[in-house]
């Protein structure tokens, strides 16, 4: 019995001493920090996605308070967070629009041809560096998931050899944009619903040789969306591109695309 009591006393004593030491350290060794850093960190979403270009939310908050960064870089937070940050910092808020990643390819394994059986590391850059990649289209999605692997929100899935972004989960951090060796992921306004899911600017006959759903630059979409003056589409070579400054909204555009590379996705409340 005495042994137990001794043990309890000893342990309790060590605990008390340690607590005292901590209390003293907190009082005398405290580092003075701008309280706004704490406020700004709290205001940020805490996803630590790195989309702002800093190591995490706390790092961005520090940069904001130190004046080396401006509010507005937090894509996941959107307008609400940026307004909050502007209030904390005492500057004027700038409105930003919520943006989400879009994979500009719809050439699944069942639609686009592969020219080889790739055997190696399951990574897009590695596959692209092996004989130029196994996909027939040299602009299309390889589907080895480099984007999915870096996505902090698991918003990207690989289905039938193609990366697909779940708009509802995407926070627009842009990490996927930088890892894609084919550079076919783009951040687009979340409110846009009509997209051209192709990235191949070469001539039609070349495209149809490798993909069943590749854009051939026929300009039908432009015509159906009110012609050149309506300015809903731009063209790069033989590739149509949605003008996200002025995105089309007509859902029938997708049906009318002869190559079925124009797709509509549902509009949804982004929450901001």
């Amino acid at each position: 019995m005495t042994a137990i009591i001794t043990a309890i006393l000893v342990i309790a004593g060590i605990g008390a001493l340690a607590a005292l030491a901590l209390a003293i350290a907190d009082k005398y060794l405290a580092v003075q920090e701008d309280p706004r850093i704490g406020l700004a960190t709290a205001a940020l979403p805490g996803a630590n996605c790195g989309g702002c270009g800093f190591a995490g939310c706390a790092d961005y908050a520090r940069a904001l308070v130190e004046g080396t960064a401006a509010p507005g870089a937090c894509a996941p937070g959107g307008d609400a967070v940026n307004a909050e940050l502007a209030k904390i910092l005492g500057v004027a808020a700038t409105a930003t629009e919520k943006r989400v990643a879009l994979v500009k390819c719809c050439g699944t394994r069942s639609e686009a041809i592969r020219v080889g059986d790739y055997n190696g590391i399951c990574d897009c850059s590695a596959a692209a560096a092996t004989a130029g990649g196994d996909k027939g289209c040299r602009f299309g999605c390889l589907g080895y998931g480099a984007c999915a692997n870096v996505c902090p929100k698991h918003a990207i899935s690989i289905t039938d050899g193609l990366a697909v972004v779940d708009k509802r989960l995407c926070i627009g951090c842009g990490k996927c944009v930088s890892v894609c060796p084919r550079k076919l992921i783009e951040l687009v306004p979340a409110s846009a619903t009509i997209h051209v899911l192709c990235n191949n600017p070469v001539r039609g006959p070349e495209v149809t040789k490798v993909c069943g759903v590749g854009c051939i630059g026929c300009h039908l979409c432009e015509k159906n969306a009110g012609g050149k003056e309506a300015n809903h589409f731009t063209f790069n070579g033989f590739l149509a591109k949605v003008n996200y400054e002025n995105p089309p909204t007509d859902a029938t555009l997708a049906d009318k695309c002869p190559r079925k590379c124009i797709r509509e996705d549902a509009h949804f409340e982004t929450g901001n």
Partner: protein
Amino acid sequence: MKPKDTSEHYILSSSPHAHADASTSRIMLDVIIALLPALCCGVYFFGLRALFLTGTCIAACLVTEGLCRLAMKRNNTIGDFSAVVTGLLLALNLPPDLPVWMAALGGVFAMGVCKQLFGGLGYNPFNPALAARAFLLISFTGPMTTWTKSAWTLSAGNVEATTTATPLALIKKGAEGFDWSQAALIKDLFIGNVNGCIGEVSALALLIGAAYLLWRKVITWHIPVAFIGTVFLYAMFKGGVPPLVHVLSGGCVIGACFMATDYVTSPITANGKLIFGCGCGLITMLIRTAPTGAYPEGVSFSILIMNALTPLINRFTQPKPFGKVKK
């Protein structure tokens, strides 16, 4: 509509496109082959029960590995034979009269806790067979140090020795007046006609296996030579019991040739291997000769301690690149 696909595709992979005839399962198979002489000796000296115990350990390891992989939803790795090697090594490090359920428990512990919990082959920090042996030794000290069915009849006729002790236990006791340098003793130790674990007794059988592994280039000489060399030198400078007795007794040879050379838990570079082997030898002898320690044998603990140091050794023995200039 998908365009017409061209005939059969070629395989696209990154160079090199040639490969040596080597595989993990072949290496494990070689280790199993190399352990067969030691197993045969164990069966010869301790009877069929040794074989039964070995079978139990291997089965326990295989079943545990299979179930763990299933539970972890990973690919089944039974085919790489590493579980067989672990089961075999564990059995060879057990006393022949250990209750069967204890041996099976050891196998489960080796595979489940020491290997698969860390992610399977390649990720375990400690040699699973040795960790399981240590687990059994600590949990069931009695059965793990009982050598009842002794076949050891010392040619010199030492009465105490013929009953229940291993040579190392005798050394630890400091058997007064025992003639350690007699040729008959060395011969018994070399052949394996002594008390001990199933596979550790016959240095001859183990050395045959080690020679096979060296010939097959499965192991390199560094760890065995450094280990045994350190034990020999330590014993020589310590005096008393002849160094050869220390080398041939207990688990020194099986430890140096088969347990310490486990790839996963030993350093990767040649220099690292030398340091590792020396460390094992040193700790073994410190445990064996410590006047206050409880254990007569220190091979398993020494290897486990050095396993823990392996990442550190690796860190300090990184090779220097060809043409590297100091900045």
